[in-house]
């Protein structure tokens, strides 16, 4: 397999030409406009003005929120998606393995890291929870990835987020390489 | 050079003036 796509960036970084990072940055964030956006009125078909009024709450793709976000002149403010708020953080710290990160994500770690670009007093807790979740789920992912030889793994990866699925794939490649080496 | 020529001829030259350059250094992962 000599086709190696441009890998996603690590942590808060994005790789400009990475398909994964482009899809990650398509994820929606709850935002609120902090000024009027004249002539862009497409949010409400009914409204007669062609402006997006200040205070409009809208789901905005991450790439647009990052592009508009400006510490000095605040055009939009970004709220945390539900899964990164206190309530869910408590669930994750209780037992991260119970959560279906595919359904809740599927870019739980990527989006969580990108959220740190937006100022919020909760950033340290978000970063900590994302990290602890990964650590808490790592062992089970690696165990299942190392013990699933020549069998259907769809059930094993069903509840994994995108990053965890690539970790699982890496484990599977290592396992298959080792089996082939053992057979000479 | 081959890749830059290709990107320019297929897409970049049809883009607005201030968007006709893509730094291929970005294709090198950190």
């Amino acid at each position, binding site marked *: 397999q000599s086709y190696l796509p441009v890998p996603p960036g690590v942590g808060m970084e994005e790789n400009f030409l990475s398909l994964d990072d482009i899809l990650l940055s398509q994820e929606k964030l709850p935002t609120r406009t902090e000024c009027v956006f004249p002539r862009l009125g497409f949010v409400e078909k009914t409204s007669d003005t062609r402006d997006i009024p200040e205070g409009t709450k809208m789901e905005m793709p991450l790439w647009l929120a990052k592009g508009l976000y400006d510490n000095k002149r605040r055009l939009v403010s970004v709220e945390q998606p539900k899964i990164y708020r206190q309530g869910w953080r408590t669930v994750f710290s209780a037992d991260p393995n119970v959560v279906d990160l595919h359904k809740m994500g599927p870019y739980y770690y990527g989006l969580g890291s990108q959220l740190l670009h937006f100022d919020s007093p909760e950033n340290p807790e978000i970063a900590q929870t994302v990290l602890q979740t990964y650590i808490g789920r790592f062992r089970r992912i690696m165990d299942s990835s190392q013990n699933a030889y020549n069998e259907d793994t769809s059930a094993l990866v069903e509840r994994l987020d995108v990053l965890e699925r690539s970790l699982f794939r890496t484990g599977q490649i290592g396992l298959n390489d080792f089996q082939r080496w053992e057979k000479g | 050079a*081959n890749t830059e020529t290709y990107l320019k001829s297929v897409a970049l030259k049809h883009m607005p003036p201030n968007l006709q350059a893509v730094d291929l250094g970005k294709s090198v992962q950190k």
Partner: protein
Amino acid sequence: MFCEKAIELIRELQRASDGQLPAFNEDGIRQVLEEMKALYEQNQTDVNEAKSEGRSDLIPTIKFRHCCLLRNQRCIAAYLYDRLLRIRSLRWEYGSVLPTSIRFHMCAEELEWFNQYKKSLATYMRSLGGDEGLDVTQDMQPPKS
């Protein structure tokens, strides 16, 4: 919403994640370039109005459209670049003559890129291993013994 066509190009490649080369989506590229032209012209108009009539309230909208322009540019660049990575790997898997079915999926400029790549690789291989050169595309797997 802007940039929907652009992200569709990326999704199309992501669905072919096993390295297959989908048909070149010329129509998709053209639609994204048309959207960019429209966004740029609207921004030109607003920038002129903002300058000539002091309409600084238009700046957020200008910034919004510029974000969309950058997004479209990124998606097109990534779409084309990822296809080149797939085409490059085909040289190592099929050798220098590609099957017709695959060539049908490439646009003329990709075929040109592929020919240039082959020349660069051949030049490199001639520079290896003394006079007769070395074909590095052989023996990609270790021998059985």
